[in-house]
């Protein structure tokens, strides 16, 4: 995977299927915060709601869809438990 964050927005290329993702600022913030240990809900509450002033339910729904989309292309891995340290 190749990625570049510039002026708050990420470009991600998955070499396996040549899919190019062009993320907006909100999606970039989620992607950058995905550390394998923090729950998506916590990322939204900690990083998205205060910074982007969006509705909580909308933000959680959009974040879930975004994460699933990236997971389908092996850009993110979705887990029910935190990654071991």
């Amino acid at each position, binding site marked *: 995977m190749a*990625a*570049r964050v*510039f002026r708050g927005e990420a470009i991600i*290329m998955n070499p396996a299927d040549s899919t*190019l993702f*062009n993320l907006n600022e909100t999606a970039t913030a989620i992607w950058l915060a995905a550390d394998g240990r923090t729950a998506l809900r916590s990322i939204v509450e900690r990083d998205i709601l205060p910074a982007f002033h969006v509705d909580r339910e909308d933000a959680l729904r959009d974040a879930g869809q975004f994460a699933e989309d990236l997971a389908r292309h092996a850009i993110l891995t979705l887990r029910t438990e935190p990654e071991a340290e």
Partner: protein
Amino acid sequence: MESLNRRAMDMGLPLSVHIDLTWRCNERCIHCYLDHDDPDELSTGELRDLLDQMAEGGAFFLTLSGGEIFLRKDLFAIIEHARLRGFDIKLKTNALLIGQKEAARIAALGVHQVQISVYSHVPEVHDAITKVPGSLVKTLQAIRLLRAAGIHVVIACVLMKPNVGAFEGVQSMAHELGAEFTIDPTITPHILGDRSILDLNIEREELRKLFETESLVGDVEAFTAAPGPVDDEILDGTPCSAGHSSCYISPHGDVYPCVQFPMTCGNVRHERFLDIWNTSEAFGEVRSIRARDLPVCSSCGHVGSCSRCPGLAYMEGSMYGPSSADCEKSFVRTGIPSANMGRAGYSRPGSGPLVQIAGMAPAVSACG
């Protein structure tokens, strides 16, 4: 990709950078436009620093080419550094030096794509172009190793007089190998100005046949249709991404808008890459040019659909002028002469068309 490119242009980012790591080569292709004896290549350290600057400036798509890149002993160190800086990497190689170990390393480093030149499925034809006996067999062995390692391989077939009938054989071979396929009937003038190799360009009738091949161009009727009306949006358009969101860097550090546009905008040994990108007067001039500023092309009916290459125009005499190779292409494609072709003194160029034709997903585009 187009919207990303547009955003990069608006933001002034060098989104795509092509670096020739060396002009040395272990083949001697008859159509090659490079000077293989050029010394004084950028060192590993200089290249690492350059990659750091490029990453800082927002560059993302990195093409490493040559010459033959595997002649550099530090190639994997350079790729490794580029991957650490997050680049999406494409390699261009003849693959003669790729064995199992190299294929595995390329895969491990997450290189996106390896583009390999194949001129014919017939060894005698391919080897006569590379001037290296046995080169096709070796190249095909390497392609199999790369594919076995899961690497995305693109087989690029430059078409010229000696291999004009070769594309179908190479296309089906690419399909069997699980590789993407492109053809490129473009011969580029020598980087030092010699235009004699342009005589290798395929004849007009052969080009017409390519333009009428559905597996290459998709919808033939749409592809060969007459150009639409010219409006302000077209006249305010920029020629291509060269110098706007992409650039080329030679093995000794010269920065050009594109490999086919050898106008020196600076040298990374004397100035920081980003200073050249942001402040070079030459880049500034390239970026200022709109279609309406082109004295001949702005009055041409093809201006909105022509793949006019500003680099080929530059090598022909002026970056504001027509690229007669592209005039020829527009004419062959549509049957309608360009404005340049109607001018007094116009003669059909020894240079042929500028076009790249992708095989797996039919599309035709100008380069750059």
